[in-house]
């Protein structure tokens, strides 16, 4: 019965082939088993492999029809023959009814969406509870894009990211990558903003996001959106890992305007509402450069630099199930 294995797509066989063959060898050959495996293979071609949509390699429905046509024909013949020689209640329903199209889809860069992970995939969940139902798909798409940018910036070009039901992302990293080292990178929101101290109605002072009028007179919050480059370096004085960043041209102007206004006052950089750096402005900052020195490990600094360049996650994302090796 081992030949039945070859009804499945190659990517599926790479992942499940060996164990599936071992199982087939223990099963008694029968028409019923052949039919079951034939349906399983069609499911793998149509639902698991491509999820019924053009996959990332640009393969379209027509190509899958072409690839699975012999299988469909075989199914039709087996069904007709099977109807004659076996009890009717063992034959499955019409093949068309059995081929359900899944809702999952492959997105991402290189690689085959169904290529087997050589280790368990990382499963993340985006918290979409605050997002209106009609915008969830778009928001999840943004999460995928941010995750892709972050992974690419970290030097991982062949990760596979897929969107599952319920706001979940399935991420398969290449086998040579240490999965644990990507958890912080992928789940930290990394929303940076510049803040100044403001007196609250109750008389206390608090850090509030600095708002600056741009050249056109529009007031804009000064956030990480204006950071266009960042990298992890070792501070020559403290010998500790720090993150250097550069603002875009627009951000440079905004920061210069802000620091003119804040002379001899406090300016701070927050990431995810955590104070990173606070300083007293002694002169306007015109070059649009800065340094964030926290109590960073080298990996923290690397992650933050990547996150600043790749942009914040639009919604909170957390790990669903810790990866095991």
């Amino acid at each position: 019965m081992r030949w039945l294995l070859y009804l499945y797509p190659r990517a599926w066989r790479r992942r499940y082939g060996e164990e599936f063959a071992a199982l087939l060898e223990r099963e008694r050959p029968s028409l019923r088993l052949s039919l079951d495996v034939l349906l399983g293979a069609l499911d793998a071609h149509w639902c698991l492999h491509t999820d019924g949509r053009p996959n990332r390699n640009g393969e379209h429905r027509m190509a899958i029809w072409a690839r699975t046509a012999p299988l469909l024909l075989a199914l039709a013949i087996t069904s007709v023959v099977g109807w004659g020689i076996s009890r009717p209640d063992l034959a499955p329903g019409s093949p068309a009814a059995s081929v359900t199209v899944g809702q999952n889809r492959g997105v991402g860069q290189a690689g085959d969406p169904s290529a087997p992970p050589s280790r368990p995939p990382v499963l993340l969940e985006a918290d979409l509870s605050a997002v209106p139902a009609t915008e969830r798909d778009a928001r999840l798409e943004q999460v995928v894009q941010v995750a892709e940018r972050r992974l690419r910036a970290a030097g991982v070009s062949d990760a596979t990211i897929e969107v599952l039901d319920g706001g979940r992302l399935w991420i398969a990293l290449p086998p040579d990558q240490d999965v644990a080292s990507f958890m912080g990178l992928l789940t930290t929101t990394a929303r940076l903003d510049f803040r100044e101290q403001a007196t609250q109605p109750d008389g206390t002072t608090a850090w509030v996001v600095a708002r600056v009028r741009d050249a056109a007179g529009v007031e804009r919050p000064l956030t990480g959106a204006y950071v266009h480059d960042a990298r992890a370096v070792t501070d020559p004085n403290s010998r500790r890992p720090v993150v250097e960043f550069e603002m875009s041209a627009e951000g440079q102007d905004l920061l210069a305007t802000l620091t003119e206004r804040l002379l001899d006052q406090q300016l701070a950089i927050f990431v995810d509402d955590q104070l990173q750096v606070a300083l007293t402005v002694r002169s306007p900052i015109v070059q649009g450069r800065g340094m964030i020195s926290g109590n960073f490990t080298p990996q923290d600094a690397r992650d933050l630099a990547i996150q600043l360049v790749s942009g914040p996650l639009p919604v909170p994302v957390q790990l669903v199930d810790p990866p095991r090796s």
Partner: protein
Amino acid sequence: VADELANLGRFTEPALLILVSLADGPKHGYAMMTDIQRLAGVHLGAGTLYAALARLERRGLILPLAAEERRRPYQLTPVGATALRAHLESMRSFAVTGLQRLAAR
């Protein structure tokens, strides 16, 4: 929490049988098949079993372990256990309601 199992369409039942089979420990394909046969009197074909396994794996409800010779055991994940418990609880309340209605006849 949405019922993860109910989202699996025609694979809901095979998936439920698999999760229950894995609830007392990791098993490979053939062990699941015989366990399910004994447990529920249902014979899952190899094609159906693996179509359901692949879906459960991709939703993070089960986890493949290292292959032993050529057979690969699968293990229930914490997410899978939660999903299974939720589904079984809803089956229980359904069964209780049904039995109560019958008793009232």
